[in-house]
């Protein structure tokens, strides 16, 4: 096992009150495995990733409980300088927006090279050579000529490749990619996802892919964890979930997307809105929007029931959902 998150809690203290962004999240990623974390805005999927990486804005954010066990050590108990050594070298992150994640006044060569000068103590010249090789590896054409260019001189897809190169630089065991292709056009998205999948196989890295796109998940993930209101509501191998979801929220999501392969009737729409994190409904957080909700859902928070050896669902009525 590479990474295990256990019962993680994160809060944000704001002027208007306490927003409970993450409320007991648990998931695990094995070596060489791709876990997709699926959720809509405000579900806590990115905040969980930030807590794992140790890049949460503190304050207003605060981890109030749980463990993040990475290669046998609980990261939350480490000192900041120990965490900094792990970050980049052992685990790396790819962000959605490459343009604002890269430094506009440094050349891409300098930014890639920095990984080697800081973590590996290489000379500038050596680091430059490594940067060119990395750019080659993520298939940026004419790497030798372009290593001295600035981020704005690259297209969106090429910038995302530079982000990937930077994450790969020190060959980490785990990569967390937060919506890595959301800002890209479909044809470019296909290029980048293919590159990411290939590199992951080559390096046998674990990958946590954070996304809201059910199509992307189906394409690359081994397992899925679906998040709602700061909790995992369903977790399963990818084939199981698309065949028969065991949580009404997952079912609702799958039913509400229009399909490329046929003309649909009226789309199924999950009624209502995602909850306000300052006042999450009691019981099951999804109950106000759930077609299966009954009295018990309004009072008792469902645990993650064991659906099978590899599946879990946080729904009191998962059997009904599965049979439906």
């Amino acid at each position, binding site marked *: 096992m590479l990474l295990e998150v256990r019962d993680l809690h994160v809060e944000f203290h704001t002027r208007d009150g306490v927003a409970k962004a993450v409320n007991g999240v648990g998931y695990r990623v094995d070596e060489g495995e791709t876990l997709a974390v699926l959720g*809509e*805005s405000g579900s806590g999927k990115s905040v969980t990733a930030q807590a794992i990486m140790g890049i949460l804005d503190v304050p207003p954010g605060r981890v109030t409980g749980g463990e993040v066990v990475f290669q046998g050590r609980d990261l939350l108990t480490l000192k900041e300088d120990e965490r900094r050594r792990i970050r980049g070298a052992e685990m790396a992150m790819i962000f959605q927006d490459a343009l604002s994640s890269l430094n506009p006044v440094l050349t891409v060569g300098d930014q890639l090279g920095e990984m080697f000068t800081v973590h590996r103590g290489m000379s500038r010249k050596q680091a430059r050579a490594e940067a060119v090789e990395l750019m080659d590896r993520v298939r940026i054409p004419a790497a030798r000529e372009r290593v001295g260019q600035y981020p704005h001189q690259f*297209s*969106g*897809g*090429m910038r995302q490749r530079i982000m990937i190169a930077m994450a790969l630089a020190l060959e980490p065991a785990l990569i967390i990619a937060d919506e890595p292709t959301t800002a890209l*056009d*479909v*044809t*470019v*998205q*296909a*290029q980048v*996802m*293919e590159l990411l999948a290939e590199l992951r196989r080559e390096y046998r890295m674990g990958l946590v892919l954070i996304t*809201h*796109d*059910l*199509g*992307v*998940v*189906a*394409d690359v*993930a081994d397992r899925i964890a679906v998040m709602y209101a700061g909790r995992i509501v369903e977790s399963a191998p*990818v*084939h199981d979930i*698309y*065949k028969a979801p065991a949580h009404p929220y997952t079912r*609702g*999501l*799958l*039913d*509400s*997307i*229009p*399909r*490329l*392969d*046929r*003309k*649909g*009737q*009226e*789309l*199924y*729409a*999950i009624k209502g*809105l*995602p909850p306000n994190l300052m006042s999450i409904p009691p019981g099951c957080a999804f109950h106000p929007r759930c077609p299966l909700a009954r009295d018990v859902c309004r009072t008792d928070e469902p645990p993650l029931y064991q659906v099978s050896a590899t599946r879990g669902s946080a729904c009191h009525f998962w059997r009904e959902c599965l049979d439906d």
Partner: protein
Amino acid sequence: MTEPILEVSDLVKHYPLTRGTVFRKQAGAVRAVDGVDLRLGRGETLGIVGESGCGKSTVAKMLVNLERPTAGSIRYKGEDITRLSGRALKAVRRNIQMVFQDPYTSLNPRMTVGDIIGEPYDIHPEVAPKGDRRRKVRELLDVVGLNPEYINRYPHQFSGGQRQRIGIARGLALRPEVIVADEPVSALDVSVQAQVVNLMDRLQSEFDLAYVFIAHDLSVVRHISDRVGVMYLGRIVETGTDTEIYDHPTHPYTQALLSAVPVPDPGAREHRERIILSGDVPSPTDIPSGCRFRTRCWKARERCALEVPALAVPATFAAAGGPAAHDSACHFAEERHVVPEGRHGGGPG
């Protein structure tokens, strides 16, 4: 098709690039839209898809007269609206309204929802006499599924999906016949997106609206459109009914675009053919000669660099007819299935 309500021919928008400050010289142009033809029937939905920079939003702006075309015509019920001005233009604008992409920036944060939705009546007072406006706004709120009691609230008190409903209500205020919607659901979460798409579907039949629906999400466009046009670098490269385009694409760009869309079916992963295009879209300041897609096309031959392919039914399909016989601007058009057959169920019914 029924009598077109909107007919666009050879629409062009070039943005000049100048050099020098004292002696300004034109040093080329961004050819954002470079010869587009469209027809929109009454009560019909025309979807326009394409990647960023293909010119789809510029087309939208010209349709509602926010941009003046460099050349070409836009005929609304036979009358060329690009030549109109003053009172005549105002009258036409009433009938062609727009819904914008970003529900966060397209609503004035200092105006109440009632003022935002009622503002069109200030410009066109003939539609609603002053005393009648509040009532009309309440009606509109109800029509788009918002509580009419919210009339005095401000945009920040609403979620993204609700704001988009406000934008739609404003678009409907003048009872237009055509609504141009530029990426109306792409800023929304999946579950909310379905609500807004269903709303637009319902309003269309209720008010007999014609939509020009612009989006980059090919699945959403298929869902809502009767006909679809695929744009690349300022031109329509293929157009037809949704079945013709999605199940029988003949232009290589359309095929690549469709094959790149991730399908929510892990079973399709192994046996799905992916066309991965190499390189990036060329700059609209420096458009390739002949076919503008040839620099990324795996089928390109010498002829493609010399001759601009016309948007017409390719000769190979014209005789036989059938769903492959639709307009496609390719010298070597071939049918190719790239969308996997739907296998697992999904959606009620």
